[in-house]
Structure formats: C-alpha cells, structure tokens
C-alpha cells in the first residue's frame, strides 16, 4: 500500500512502488483528467504538481512521491493561480481538442505560482515542455498574461 495525498484527500493505493503516478491516477483512481501522451516525458500532457511544482507523472514512480501533496487538473481550480488560469483559458478560448490542456494548465499554474507577472521568456521556459498538436500556443501565451492580471 502506498499512501498519497491527492487534491487534498488522503488515499492509499495497492500498487507497486515503481508504478508511474500517471497510471495510478488514471487507471486505479479514475482521475482521467491527467493525460497519457508519450510516456517518456516529452510532451507534458501528464503534468501534475508535487507541492506546487510541475512534474511529468508518466515518469514518476509513486514510491518517489513521499509525503508531497499531489495536485491534478481536477483539483487545481481551488488554488488561486489555478482558478485564474482556468478562467483565462475560457475567456480567451484557448482550447481546441483539449487533450494536452490539462498539462498546459498545470504548467501555466505552476509558472504563475512562482512568477506572478511572467515575461515572454518566462513563458517560453515554463511552457516549452508542453506540446499542443492543435497549435494553441499563441492563445496560451495570451491567456497566461491575461491570468496574471486577474484578481484572485
């Protein structure tokens, strides 16, 4: 049994310690908002937060999580930055197919947490690990800037 804190709730899962968090979230806990894209940390679709920092859950064994708090796209909306990012995403109509957007939202929220007023260079550095095949990058950039101006 591995104990995990996900979106503020404690749960324990019966799974090998080396099982990546992605599949624990999706297949064991039914939290399918976190997406499988590549399995090798190249696309960012599986991004979640550990204590507020973005990690690729497809490469993170649950045994390595320890007592750090896991936040997924299902829970990020209760954080001030997450709520701003989700609002900005809708106001600027960022999303097309949406499959990568859980990961984009998690990366953008982490950026805003650490850098409330990000520059273009900050956005490039934080977001270039997240691939969007629909090509919503122009709007993601605008939406991050928009979110940074929203009141909590």
């Amino acid at each position, binding site marked *: 049994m591995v104990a995990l804190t996900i979106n503020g709730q404690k749960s324990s899962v019966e799974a*090998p310690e080396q*099982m*990546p968090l*992605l*599949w624990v979230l*999706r*297949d*064991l806990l*039914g*939290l*399918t*908002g*976190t*997406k*499988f*894209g*590549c*399995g*090798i940390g*190249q*696309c960012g*679709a599986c991004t979640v937060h550990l204590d507020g920092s973005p990690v690729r859950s497809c490469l993170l064994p649950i045994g390595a999580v320890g007592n750090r708090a896991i936040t*997924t*796209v*299902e829970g990020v*909306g209760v954080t001030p930055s997450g709520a701003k990012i*989700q609002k900005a*995403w*809708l106001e600027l*109509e*960022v*999303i*097309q*197919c*949406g*499959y*990568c*957007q*859980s990961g984009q*939202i998690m990366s953008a929220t982490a950026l805003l947490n650490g850098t409330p007023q990000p520059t273009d260079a900050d*956005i*490039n*550095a934080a*977001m*270039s*690990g*997240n*691939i*969007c*095949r*629909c*090509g*919503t*990058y*122009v*709007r*993601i*950039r605008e939406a991050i800037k928009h979110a940074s101006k929203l009141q909590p």
Partner: protein
Amino acid sequence: MNTKVIDRLQDPARRNAIKAVAAAGGVLLFGFHIPTVRAAQKAAGTSPLQFEPNAFIRVDQLGTIKLIMPQTEMGQGVYTSIAMILAEELDVSLDQVQVEAAPPNEKLYANPVFGIQATGNSNSVRAFWMPLRKAGASARAILVEAAAKKWNVDPSVCQTDRGEVIHTPTGRRIAYRLLVGSATGIASPTDPPLKSIDAFKLIGQPLKRLDTPDKVNGKVVYGIDVMLPNMKFATLAACPVFGGRVGHVDDSAALASPGVHQIVVLDDFVAVVADNMWAAKEGLNALRIEWQLGSNAKISTRDVWEQTRAASEQDGVAAKAVGDASQALSQGGDRFDADYELPFLAHATMEPLNCTVEVKQDSCEVWVGSQVISRAQAVAAKVTGLPREKVIAHNLLMGGGFGRRLEVDHIEKAVRVAQKVEGPVKVVWTREEDIQHDVYRPVYLDKLSATLKDGKIVGWRHRITGSSIMARWFPAGFQKGIDIDAVDSAVDLPYNIPNLRIEYVRHEPPAVPTGFWRGVGPNNNVFAAESFVDELAKKAGQDPVAFRRAHLDKAPRLKAVLDLVASKSDWGKPIPARHGGRTGRGVEVQGAFATYIATVAEVEVDKDGEVRVTRVVLAIDTGIVVNPDTVVAQMQGGLIFGITAALYGEITVENGRVQQSNFHDYRMLRMDQTPDIQIHIIKSTEPPGGIGETGTTAAPPALRNAIFAATGIPLRRLPIDRDVLAGRKPNPAST
C-alpha cells in the same frame, strides 16, 4: 446519455445504474451537459414527451433543447458552429441548447457531400450549412404553427425569440417546451422561410465554445478516458516491419509480470491484457516475440523515392487540359522545370489511438472517438459476424483527428482483442505504436514545367505522382485513373494561364500504408504550385506579390486577400534581423476548400541553417463566417501544424520499419518557436467555405518562399534541409 455516465469514481452503485440505463436505452448518445431532472426521470423509467421534427433537433417538455451533431468534434470547433447554425434558425440562444454526438446512421447523418457519415475535408459547415438551416427553420415553423393554433391566430403575425413564440400584436408569449405536445403531428413545411443574413443573431458572433468548460477541469471524457465496470486494459504490438506476421511468442515472463491477465496472440499482432495500462506495458516489454518479417523487410525510404521518381517519368492521366500545354512548353518563351518532393508524415494526435470494446454472445459495444462512426460500427460487425444493429457504437470526443481517425484499423484490432477477453477491454496504443503503425500521408512528387513570355506564364504543366488514397478509402473518388483528392487545388489553380495541363500518376509506395492527413491533396498541390510560382516570379524579375496579382484576373476574392495581406504584412519593407541571420518574407495564395487565403511568412535563417519563423500574417475570405473566433483559432492552429511539418515532419523507413518512434525524433513546434500570428478576416456574404485544414496548407509554401527570399536557395523538398541552408551540402534542385 451523456459523457458523465462514464463512471469516473468507480462507484459500484452508480455503475450498475448506468448499466441499467444503457441497457434500456439502446443507442447511447454522448453529450456534454446532463440535465439533472431529465436524468433522474430517465433513471426512474419515465421520459418526458419530446418534439422531434427531424434528425437534428429534440425539444422536450422540460425545456431541454438537444441538438444532434452529425459531424464529430476533434478540436475544430464544429460542435459549436453546427449548433450555432441550428440554433440560429430554430431561434434559440446557445446557452439554451445541449449537443450530442449522432449515433451511427448513414441515412440520417451522412455528410451530404460525401454520402457517408464522415468528418473530413474541411466540409462540415460547407456541407451542412443549408440542410441544418432548413432543419432549424422547419422546426421553428412547426412551433409557430402550433402556437398560432393554440391562440387561434394567423401564424404570420407570430415571431420567435430565444425559444419562445410571440404573438406580435398582443405580445403574448409561449415557450417551445409548452408546445411539444401540440407541435408533434404537424407536418414539416417543405420550404420553410430562412432568416436573411442581416437577421442573424448568432451566426457571425464570436460565441464561446460549448465543449471547452469541461476541458479546463479534467471532466471531459475522450475515448481514452472511458471507464467501465470490470474493464481490463490492453496494449499491443504489431510487427515492426509493415505486413509482417507473428511467429513464435514466449509469454512466460509476461504472464509472470504483476497485473497481467492474458496474452492475446493473433496473426498480425500481440496484445497484453492487464489490470491497468502500466501493467499491460510492462507485460508487453516482457514478451519475447519472434516476427515473420515477410517481403517488406528490406524496404527503405530510398526505394520508395526511386520507385516514385521512376513512376513520375511516365505520362500521367490528364485531370485537366486547357489550350495546348505541350506546344506552349516546347516553343515560344523561357521554359522552366522543377520537381518538388514531400515526405511521409504521421498524424501524431495528442490522444494516442485507443478503443474500448465489449463483445458478448449476441452483441458488441464500442466506445471510441471516430471521424467515421458508422464505419466503426461496420468494422465491429464484420469482425464479430454480428448484424450492424447489434453493434452499439458510442462516439466520444477526440484528442485530435487530423485524418487518423478516418481510419478504423485500431477499432478492428480492439474488437479482435475483445473477442478473446471476458468483459470490456480498453485497448490503448503506446505512442511508439501510434507513430510506427500510422496510416501515413503519402510521399508526393510534383513535376512542374512552365513557360514565361513577356513576364506572364503562358504554359503550365503539373504532373502529380503519388498514392491514391481515394482508391482504397472512397473508390468513387478514384475514376478513370484520377484521384480527385490527389489533384485537388492543382486542377483549380487560380492563375489565369492560357495553356495548362494537370496530370496524375497513381503510384503506391511499397509497404507503407497511406491515408488522409490534415490538408489532404491541397497540402501537396498548393505547396508545389506556390513554390514554383515564386521561382517563376524570380525568373521573370518580378516581385512575388505583383507577379501573382498579374495572374489573378479571374480570381477577385484571391486578389482581395492578397492585397490585404500585402498591406498588413509590410510587404516590401525591410525586416530587421533579430538574431543576426538572413531574413525574408514569403507569400502564398490558395483557394483550397472553397476558402480564399493569402499568407505572408517572415523567417530568419541563421548560419547553421536553423530557421525561425518570426511572424505570419494571413488574410482569409471564407464566405459567411459562422464563428469568427473559431476561424481565427483554426488559422492560428492550422498554421502551426503546417509550420511543424515544414520544419520537422518526415517519417522514414529502413528495413521495412519506421525509424521515428516518439516526440523526441518526430518533433513538434513548441511554445518558444511559435511566431507572432495575425489573422485578418474579410467580410463576405458568399456561402461558407472550409477552414479546418486551410492554415495547414498555407504555412509550408509561405515559409519555404520566405526562406527563398532570405537565402536565394529554392528548396524543393520538405522538411527543410538545414544542411543545404547552412551551405554544408548542395541544394538537390541545382544537381
């Protein structure tokens, strides 16, 4: 039924309730918003009376207005634009409606242009524009008549607004939901009055998409997110060599791997069935499979190109002939020739291929995101031997389609796995399997010849050599040796040229399966023609915009977008080098998918041959715009899709195997490389054009022509060759 019936929290009580509803309901429809009252009633076994004037509209007594989507949502925004068209003529607002995917039913939901239930070729709004306006208007006319009868007044003195009929003289109002009973039974008018364009309330407004709220919070359910009671998870491996078969399988280690239930060994692939996807992947890694590689084991991309080039030397079938092209090319004027070559491409949708299936003794149920849901149903029926009506196929949202989900190979494979598995099984492909067993955009070779006289093109020949996708996918589109897709945008070249000949040589590449890819035939033909025109402009000593403009007498809409893009892009003005490289602007025009576009790209090429796309300006006339924000989004995204292909896209084959496997070697454009993109829409009252693929066809020629302007190097192949741009190797064009 609805996306939220999918059991996210694995609550057994809820699961059983869902099962019961599913069993009772027969065909399930997936939508976005579940009306709580209605769901409760349905679960209790009562159903409110419903007004169903046609296949697309459902109004019930509780006020639920449901619109059935004949075209599928893969990110292009079609659920919103189609809902807007229906809602406009029905005269309801968008916040009053829910949308649901249509079930497989060719009779009710076939695309009027294709005659089959398919979403592709940028033609959802084009094909359904009038049928859906009429469907909405007809329903509205019936509701007006029902109200008029109730009030005992003349229908002509009634109007509608936001789901209510209004008796104009008295101001009396009645909601559509209160007319459900009396409207049922009133015959549909044959020719209902349509709104005039200036009366549109929704069409033309940048309304918010219906599908995005659930896409920011993780609630959305794509095919890959389907969760069913007692469901198992599987992943699979086909022979890495195209066409190879399974030889011997040693499954002892795989079966010993934790969580693995079963190894399914079939002729052409092996699947591992497990408790979860990770266990399935680990099991797959532990399998020892000996493949029978078959006859393709020596095939390489080099062979493909040698054969394609040889095939292109023969005369093709004439797809269009105007004047006398051979005479114009052989005498009088300066003759130029160039060959352009485009590579195999994978689709790489962000959502890897997947399909969930449960095969029972006398029925089969399939959950999948598909661009061709009736074909999905048909293939499951074929594999299981069941009649089609015994196959329930649920269409879910797609994490990208781009043509990959016009195929059903993944559905066929999943059904074959499910036949061997007790209960439902979700079959998910790894990214590696997805890239290496795609149905690829074919290689194309375009041989172009032209003659210039007094600065004008007087003769033009374009010979297209490549796979016929239509011959396999839609045989009616391949007649007398001509594939209508392969010559699309070549036969309707917009330039005014007196002698013109377009030829097609069908050549199927060895081993590699080919299929539609975003931009389809025009992707190839617009690239080849617009690259060649740029070279001709240079030969003629003319500015690329002015040269094109001089040949667009018969294409006023293209001329207008060209003029607009030239002015908005600072055409003719210098571009500062931001990174010390060579800079240039390139232009292209296209009339593909009944949409008129002109694009200017700006690039900077550094000494290592690396290309930065710094800005793209695009002007578009796509007729009546249903949702301008969607048009802008499709242009932005389509351009990035096209830039990605031009800069990086290439699938290569060695020893019968695809050499790329994941995003590290099949690269995508990323945030830090994304140019500034400006979109300018021209207002129009022409019928709507297609938009989903046009940005993708626009980007590569504009980008390639910008590189030509920056460096003087006329690239003739995609993706761009950095060695050529750095001077490390000669341009194949000059050899």
